[in-house]
């Protein structure tokens, strides 16, 4: 057998993801309104109002970029699963700090109230539904950009040096990415519509519930089409994710039932069960994807 013909080693692609993420989060931050307590904290040390507000708006992109740089330094030479967990934890910290200091999409509640009447204060389940919806929409935007712009978008979202071959996205794959984006944005909107329904006056709940139901059905159809377009590895990944989720959810439900019988926790309603199952399934599927394919989004380690 002939020896391998070694291609000349290509220079790793320079990652643009940190810059792109910083700009994206700066744009997100621009939709927000700083919490009065946070502004007061800064004005208390002598900053004028405008500077305090500007500093709080600048905090999320600066924190995100710092977290990514720290993450890159920490996860060097670690497995892709560990890397994913470290980045997720850092992202969670940035998200929590941001949520503590400012209200993102400050204009959105006003628009929803104008269309659907007053909204009650969001409680834990509604906050989780909004969060899940936002995560789905954010992932859908990222996948949708790959579907629209292919390798350019993948390159723009990389945060680590990468083999240029990993950046290639074939035309046939872009169609599947497009369907995946639809399969993610639709349940995201459904989650947010369900949150709106729960926060609305009883007589105003039908509208958002129709929206939630419609988008949930559209999501199921899109995901069925994605499943049909998947190859064997992608199907195996989905099945692995669901299999581990089923075990985790069953064990979790049993522990909750015991804790509930002992009076330590309350009963769980359907929305809470949906949120818990969705979170478990999302996390487990991401771990399964990371384990089998390397990191998501074509960032698997070079062969």
């Amino acid at each position, binding site marked *: 057998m002939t020896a391998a013909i070694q291609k000349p080693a290509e220079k790793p692609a320079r990652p643009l993801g940190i810059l792109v993420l910083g700009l994206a989060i700066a744009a997100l931050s621009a939709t927000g309104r700083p919490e009065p307590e946070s502004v007061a904290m800064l004005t208390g040390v002598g900053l004028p109002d405008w500077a305090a507000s500007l500093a709080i708006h600048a905090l999320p992109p600066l924190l995100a970029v710092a977290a990514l740089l720290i993450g890159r330094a920490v996860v060097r030479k670690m497995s892709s699963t560990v890397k994913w967990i470290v980045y997720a934890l850092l992202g969670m910290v940035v998200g929590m700090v941001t949520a503590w200091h400012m209200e993102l999409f400050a204009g959105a509640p006003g628009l929803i109230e104008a269309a659907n009447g007053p909204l009650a204060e969001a409680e834990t389940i509604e906050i989780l539904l909004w969060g899940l919806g936002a995560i789905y929409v954010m992932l859908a935007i990222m996948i949708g950009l790959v579907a629209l712009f292919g390798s350019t978008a993948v390159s723009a979202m990389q945060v680590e040096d990468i083999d240029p*071959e990993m950046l*290639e996205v074939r035309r046939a*794959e872009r169609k599947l990415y497009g369907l995946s984006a639809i399969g993610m944005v639709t349940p995201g909107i459904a989650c947010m519509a369900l949150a709106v329904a729960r926060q609305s006056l009883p007589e105003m709940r039908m509208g958002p519930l129709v929206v939630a139901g419609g988008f949930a059905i559209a999501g199921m159809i899109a995901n069925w089409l994605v499943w049909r377009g998947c*190859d*064997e590895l992608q199907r195996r990944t989905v099945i692995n994710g669901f299999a581990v989720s089923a075990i985790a959810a069953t064990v979790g439900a049993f522990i909750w039932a015991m804790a509930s019988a002992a009076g330590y926790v309350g009963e769980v309603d359907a929305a809470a069960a949906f949120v818990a199952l969705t979170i478990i399934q999302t996390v487990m599927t991401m771990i399964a994807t990371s384990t089998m394919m390397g990191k998501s989004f074509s960032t698997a380690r070079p*062969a």
Partner: protein
Amino acid sequence: MKNRLKVLRAERGWNQSDLAEKLSVSRQTINAIETERYDPSLPLAFAISHLFGLPIEQIFLSETGQPPA
């Protein structure tokens, strides 16, 4: 399972996307096989064998690096 997929495709000057397209699978699948994260199904293994014109045992090797017994 160890395999010689990367060597074989390099000999032909194909990148992972080229090979993925010829086998009608995703590039991630090719990458996962080459990095030994995933063992292909029998139909895919046969498709790879047919594409390279080699018996399966000359492409896929056991953990010891030898062709499966």
